[in-house]
C-alpha cells in the first residue's frame, strides 16, 4: 500500500454500475471492451466504483479483466445520486485525465454522464453500438444512431478529453471470470461532497417477473402492426410454448401493450437469441439495432417491402391477425 500523488494517468475508464448487477451485466461488458481499447492504446483499463459496500464488485471487475479499480467508499455514496456522483467523478477525471470514459446506457448512466460531460467541457456519444480505436489517429470512433435512428454516425472527439460514450447493455460480450486475476486498486481523495438537493426517502426494487430477455434462446417481438393489446397478448402464449421471452418495439411499448423493460433497440435492450420472430414490425433502425445479434430471424409483415425482410432469414408476407392464430394453433398441437 502506497501513498501517491496523481499526475497524468490516462487509461480507459468504465463507470462501475452495479445496482442491477446480475440483470444487465453492462459494466462487465464494458470492461471487456475497455481492455481491448486499452490494449490498442497501450494503456490500462480502469473501473470507477463508488458506493458504501463495494468490495465484492471490485473483485468481480478484476476477475473480468480490469487492470485498475478506482474506488471510493462513503455513506453518502451509498445511493446513486446524480449531484454527488458527478462531483466526485468531475474531480477525479480532472486529476487523472483518462483518455476514454465509458458508461452503460442505463437510466442512471443516461442521467449523470451528460452532466459530467458538460462539466468537463467534452463531448458525449449516447447509446453507442460500436467503439473502435482509429489506428491512424488513435481517436475513439464512436458509432451511434443519428437523425432519429435513420443513420449510424461515426463520431470522434479530437480536441477534448476524455472521449465519453454510453453503450447499450448487450452490445459487447463480457469476458469469462478469472479467479487468478490480480489488479491494482486505488483510493483517491473524495474531497468535499455537495449537499444533495434531493433526498432519497425510500428505494425499493420493482416487482420482478423474471424477465430474461438478454439471455433468452427464443424471442418473439411485436410491433405496431399487431394493432391491439389483445393481439399482442398472443405473443406471450407463443413465447411460453417456445420457452422464450417477449420483446417489443417502441410503438408497442408506447401503446401500453408491453412493459418498458421489454423494449428492444436503441433505447431498449439488445438480444442475441437463437431464434427471433418479429411480428408486425416494419424494421426501423431504432428497433433492428437491438436484434442484429439474433442467429435466425423470422419476420411476419403484410408489407412485402418492409425493411425487416432485408435482415430476416425467413419472411412471411401476410396479415398477422391471420398468421398468428395459425402459428399458435400449430404450436399448441405440436408442443
Amino acid at each position, binding site marked *: 500500500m502506497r501513498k501517491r500523488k496523481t499526475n497524468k494517468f490516462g487509461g480507459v475508464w468504465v463507470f462501475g454500475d452495479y445496482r442491477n448487477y446480475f440483470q444487465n451485466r453492462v459494466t462487465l461488458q464494458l470492461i471487456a471492451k475497455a481492455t481491448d481499447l486499452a490494449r490498442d492504446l497501450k494503456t490500462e483499463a480502469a473501473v470507477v466504483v463508488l458506493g458504501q459496500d463495494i468490495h*465484492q464488485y471490485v*473483485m468481480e471487475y478484476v476477475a473480468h479483466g480490469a487492470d485498475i479499480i478506482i474506488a471510493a467508499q462513503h455513506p453518502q455514496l451509498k445511493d446513486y445520486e446524480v449531484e454527488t456522483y458527478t462531483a466526485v467523478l468531475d474531480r477525479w477525471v480532472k*486529476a487523472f485525465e483518462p483518455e476514454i470514459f465509458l458508461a452503460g446506457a442505463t437510466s442512471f448512466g443516461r442521467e449523470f454522464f451528460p452532466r459530467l460531460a458538460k462539466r468537463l467541457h467534452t463531448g458525449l456519444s449516447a447509446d453507442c453500438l460500436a467503439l473502435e480505436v482509429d489506428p491512424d489517429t488513435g481517436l475513439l470512433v464512436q458509432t451511434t444512431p443519428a437523425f432519429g435512428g435513420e443513420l449510424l454516425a461515426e463520431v470522434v472527439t479530437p480536441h477534448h478529453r476524455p472521449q465519453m460514450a454510453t453503450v447499450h447493455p448487450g452490445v459487447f460480450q463480457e469476458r469469462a471470470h478469472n*479467479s487468478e486475476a490480480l489488479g491494482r486498486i486505488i483510493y*483517491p481523495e473524495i474531497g468535499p461532497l455537495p449537499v444533495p438537493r434531493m433526498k432519497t426517502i425510500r428505494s425499493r426494487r420493482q416487482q420482478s417477473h423474471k424477465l430474461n430477455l438478454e439471455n433468452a434462446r427464443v424471442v418473439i417481438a411485436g410491433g405496431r402492426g399487431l394493432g391491439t393489446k389483445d393481439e399482442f397478448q398472443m405473443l406471450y402464449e407463443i413465447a411460453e410454448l417456445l420457452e422464450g421471452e417477449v420483446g417489443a418495439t417502441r410503438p408497442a411499448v408506447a401503446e401500453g401493450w408491453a412493459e418498458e423493460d421489454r423494449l428492444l433497440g436503441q433505447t431498449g435492450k439488445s438480444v442475441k437469441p437463437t431464434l427471433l420472430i418479429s411480428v408486425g414490425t416494419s424494421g426501423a433502425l431504432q428497433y433492428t439495432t437491438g436484434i442484429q445479434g439474433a442467429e435466425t430471424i423470422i419476420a411476419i409483415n403484410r408489407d412485402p417491402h418492409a425493411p425487416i425482410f432485408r435482415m430476416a432469414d425467413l419472411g412471411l408476407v401476410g396479415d398477422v391477425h391471420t398468421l398468428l392464430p395459425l402459428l399458435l394453433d400449430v404450436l399448441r398441437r405440436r408442443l
Partner: protein
Amino acid sequence: MEYEESRISAHHNYLVNRVLTPGFVVGKPNEDKGFFLLADLVLPGESTPRICARLLDAQGVLLLELEWNRIRENPGMCTHRPVPGGFVIVLPSEEALMEVRTESFANGYITRIKARLFDETGQVRSETLGESLQVRGEAKLVLDSPFVFSRK
C-alpha cells in the same frame, strides 16, 4: 490529489487499513522471537485464510503461536473456537484476542481480522477500526506472492 494504492486479488483479499490486499505481514515473521502477524495469499481453489502469528500480551509476554490458523505454542492457555466463517482465539478471561471471519461472495472471499495486538515492547501494532484491521509500525501491506519463511 493523493491516493492510496494496493494490489487486489479477484479471488480473496484481506481488509487492512480500510484497503483490500491479497496478503500482508506485520512484524518480523522470520525472527525466532517477537510479535508478527502474517495473512498470506489464498489461491484460487482455497477459501480459508492463511494466518500465522506470534501473539503477545501488553507486557510483551508470549501468549501463543498460530501456524496456518492452528495453535502451535500456547503458554497463554488460549482456546481456538470455530465461528461461522472463521475462528476466534479466546483468552482464559474469555476475552477475544483475535477474530478471523471470511465473507464469501458469488465468486470471491474477503477476510476481516479483528484484534488488538502488541509487540514485544508493549506497543500496539494492530487495532480494530470498524470492519478493518488498522496496523501500525513495520509492515508489508501487500504481498504479491505466497510468503516464504526463511527462519529454521
